[in-house]
């Protein structure tokens, strides 16, 4: 029981540290600033989570987000129809990859490793040098200032709730997770594993697209290398959120919390601590270790 609360606990820990270091940050303005870049991370983490739910791993999500970003800042603004078609097509490519991986029984890690080059190459072809501009509607969406609760928090809640409902509560969500738990059992019950894999990958593609668009909505313009770091971040987020690499054990709420924790620990906390430049990178690692080690004390007691 306590175990499922661990991701939330890590987040609270980081928030407490931030509040102590810089009380100013705990405000409407502070949260808006600290957390808005966590939204695309959370979306990418959710994308990765769908893939992990089916016992696969996506090493291409980072460059895919970058590719989507480049399309968003160019085609989607200049020729919205073509832009939408490209993005839908890229979700289709994800679905096809799922099918390919299932039909040829390929290791997803190699296929997505290859695809990570493809997406990055396409991103460079779409946007040979940094630039472009996000569509206005996207800019105003990401700059939205709702009353009382900052937009990033609302967005995070929304993402977590929607995905939790879809994957954890609906009847087909059970089938999707079951495909990671015991694929043979699912097949024996008459379900198509090809279909579950396609759906999981298509969902990953969809959330990858959302992540890229959200990112460009915040940064306002694109760069072919903009998403590269998201591959590792998203995997770390899923694991931090209590997910496991095999066995279909994932948690959408945990994944979103994990992504927020990573985003907060990597930047605001670090910036507020005033560490000598040489050791700032190390501090980044140390924070991660401390956050995770704190969890150990709890999970150990529970045993």
């Amino acid at each position, binding site marked *: 029981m306590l175990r499922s609360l661990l991701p939330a606990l890590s987040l609270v820990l980081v928030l407490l540290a931030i509040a102590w270091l810089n009380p100013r*940050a705990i405000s409407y303005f502070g949260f808006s600033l600290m957390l808005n870049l966590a939204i695309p991370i959370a979306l990418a983490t959710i994308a990765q989570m769908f893939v992990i739910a089916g016992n696969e791993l996506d090493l291409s999500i980072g460059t895919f987000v970058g590719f989507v970003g480049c399309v968003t800042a160019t085609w989607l603004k200049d020729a919205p129809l073509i832009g939408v078609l490209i993005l839908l097509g890229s979700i289709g490519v994800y679905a096809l990859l799922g099918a390919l991986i299932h039909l040829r029984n390929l290791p997803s890690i190699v296929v997505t490793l290859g695809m990570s080059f493809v997406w990055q190459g396409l991103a460079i072809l779409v946007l040979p040098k940094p630039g472009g501009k996000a569509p206005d509607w996207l800019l105003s969406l990401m700059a939205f200032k709702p009353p009382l609760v900052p937009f990033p928090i609302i967005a995070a809640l929304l993402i977590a709730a929607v995905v939790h409902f879809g994957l954890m509560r609906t009847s087909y969500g059970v089938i999707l997770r079951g495909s990671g738990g015991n694929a043979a059992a699912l097949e024996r019950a008459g379900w198509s594993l090809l279909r579950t894999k396609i759906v999981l990958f298509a969902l990953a593609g969809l959330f990858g697209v959302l992540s890229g668009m959200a990112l460009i909505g915040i*940064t306002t313009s694109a*760069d072919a*290398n903009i998403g590269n770091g998201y591959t590792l971040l998203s995997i770390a987020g899923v694991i931090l959120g209590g997910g496991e690499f095999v066995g279909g054990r994932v948690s959408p709420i945990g994944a979103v919390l994990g992504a927020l924790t990573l985003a907060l620990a990597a930047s605001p906390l670090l910036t507020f601590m005033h560490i000598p*430049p040489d050791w*700032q*990178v190390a501090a980044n690692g140390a924070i991660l270790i401390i956050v995770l080690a704190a969890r150990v004390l709890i999970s150990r007691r529970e045993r």
Partner: protein
Amino acid sequence: TSGKKIAFSNNYAGNSWRQAMLDSYSIVTKKAVEDKVVAAADIFTTADKEVPTQAAQVQNLILQGYDAIVINAASPDALNGAIKQACDVGIVVVSFDGIVTEPCAYRVVVDFKDMGRQEIEQMAKFQPKGGNLLEIRGLAGTSIDDAIHAGILEGVAARPEFKIVGSVTGDWDQTTAQKAVATILPSLPDIVGVVDQGGDGYGAAQAFAAAGKPRPTIIMGNRQDELQWWKEQKDKDGYQTWSASIAPGVSSLAFWVAQQVLDGRTDIPHDLLVPYLAFTQDDFEAELPKIVKGGVASHEYTQEDAIAAIKANIK
């Protein structure tokens, strides 16, 4: 400006150029703080050259209430969102090296395109007959790579005796560059010269030596090992070349620009052009002993230098 706080947002610290840049910056700012010119000048470095990480960093600097942010940006455009947020709350933003295009920010720019053009001009001096060139590009998809490359193309267009027969991506990383050159060399015809983006010259020279190919004229990039190798070759057989790169000390100029703006100056143009640092056959040996072993040639700006540099830019 003695009450003002200036932050420096940097996205990478792992090579000698960045280390020299940080050194120059901290030497100059430490003195400025001691002299009570500014109240604080803190340095923030992220690890990974990633845009989102640096964007988040800028946003957090806003939250900390700095008056100005000096930035070496991971992307010229993709940080604009965060930069705009900073400007909107009245923070002065000065970018250099990796500049930002957001109009509200100041840019201390080096004319990289001219640097590319000059590489071909200089090459023509050493290889008057012209011939085949190998180009080593920088990190794909960045503006600096794009500008230098464009300059080189212009130069070649102006001098048809040169022909680029091979182009590899070196990512501004000596290891990657050497590896890329090593893989392409076996299949290339004879090369008279190598044009690059600075810092890749030594790796290229090693790759030629390893493949047993004749040594071409390699444009250098102001690193100590490059100049050292140049000197060894020169001592051996009078080898000639040219060397250019942006000086890491530009970071200190950016700091002074921020300080001047905070001081209330309104006549400073948002785009300041500063020269890149180049060495020729005649003057590089004088510079060599001044560079720390394994480091890179630099030049720090004092407040007076900076004011002069600003003045030169006011038309």
